[in-house]
């Protein structure tokens, strides 16, 4: 245990860990958004025949 416990403020550590992790977290969000777009594009493409043969809101 550190001395002078009463004077220790943990906020600086909370601040810095966010800044350090921030870049990685931002990349993860970007990757997630990118993947959703790809997935959305692929599923739209696959769903297209159904739209053609059936009821047609997207037509």
């Amino acid at each position, binding site marked *: 245990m550190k001395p002078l416990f009463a004077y220790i403020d943990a906020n600086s550590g909370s601040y810095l860990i*966010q800044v350090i992790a921030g870049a990685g*977290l931002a990349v993860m*969000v970007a990757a997630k958004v990118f993947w959703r777009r790809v997935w959305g594009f692929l599923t739209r493409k696959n769903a297209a025949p159904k739209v053609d043969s059936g009821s047609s809101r997207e037509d």
Partner: protein
Amino acid sequence: MSGVGVAGSFRDPSGFVFTREGTLYRQVNRVFADQFELLHSSGLYDALTGEGLVVRHEEADLSLAPGPDAYRVIRPKRVGFVSYPYEWSFSQLKDAALATLRIQSVAMEHGMSLRDASAYNIQFDGGRAVLIDTLSFEKLREGQPWIAYGQFCQHFLAPLALMRYRDPRLGQLARVQLDGVPLDMAAGLLPFRSRLRPALLLHLFLHARSQRRHAGEATAAGSSEQGPAKRTRPFSRQAFVGLIQSLEGAIRKLRWDPPTSVWSAYYDEADSYSQQGLAHKQRLVGEFVRQASPQTVWDLGANTGMFSRIAAAEGARTVAFDFDPATVDICYRKLAEEKVKNVHPLILDLTNPSPAIGWENRERMTLAERGPADMALALALVHHLAIANNVPLQGVAGFFRASCTWLAVEFVPKSDPKVQMLLAAREDVFPGYTREGFEEAFAERFEILRTEPIPDSGRMLYLMRAQNAA
């Protein structure tokens, strides 16, 4: 007549809560004027109240303000029963954490942010976790990380991880750690395997290490230009979104299920009665509640809430207390499934009820200060207090008298198998534990209105009304 400040509402310079002639108000100070206006003009207040995530408030007359510097006075909707994190089960704390993160996400969409993430700012109303502190918001500081991150991890993530990986009873740590579980303490108590969860590794273990390493240094959020502020880069909006999503993932993945034995007990709650005996007891409890027509009911020793539901079905706002975190968790989950909104399950050991804690022992109320209830149910409870915990029957009656006006109480005789189980491991030093002794002790404080036997059990059910009740 001036207002009376609520004892737990003094830390925030933006305003405080007070009561006046029994009505709850909140004074908004001038220093918070811009943020308060932004809360409304940004559409955040409407968005959050629309989702049921923040308590609604109405504007009140500014002349009601008891303090100087008042900008507005608002009248928030009052929640049914104030409860504290150390009285919540795992699922309740988890829902409170998820509500806090959802509020933060919505706030960011409206250009605002939570400036604190205290679990005490959350209450349960209508079965849902809601934020009660309207003054918790500030304009989003572009390029800055979340100021409430450390507090969120201490108030929610650390206790949930401890309850998940060590023991659900560790939720009680909140009683002694008023600003949440210190992260170094949580990191020391958690098993090694919890580090294999990347989100826990980051938000708990590395976070704790960072707090230790950089304790006392100034940051860009502080006033000094010294220290690590110089070498930090702006925190992008995408990083902020990533942080909240990562915390949400960490919380969602923390799952704890009550042991199978407790689940099976849920379905066998009635094993002390014949089918006919249980049906009769349920009918009697319903009749007693209708006769008392209470607005508030405390079901003391509620187990998984079978009788709480009966009181709730009669329209009473019911609090279901039990000392076992597993049964309370099951009760909470089942009530959510059944969409029962007026039963609030809570963890409480009646032999050691929640004390007054915090600054001047006035920040968090005792159980007694949050009562009395119009009616209490004490079903299959007295033998636990009198025999398992050696509380004299006069003391039990005195506690109930302080807790309620109407009382539905069950007496379980010594011949009952459940009492025999309690006596199996201890000397019978309870000669006064008889039906006559019970009635004598309770008649000192209550008028006994009805006495009904429960078929096939030897147990008796009483309806009592407090003497000298208004």
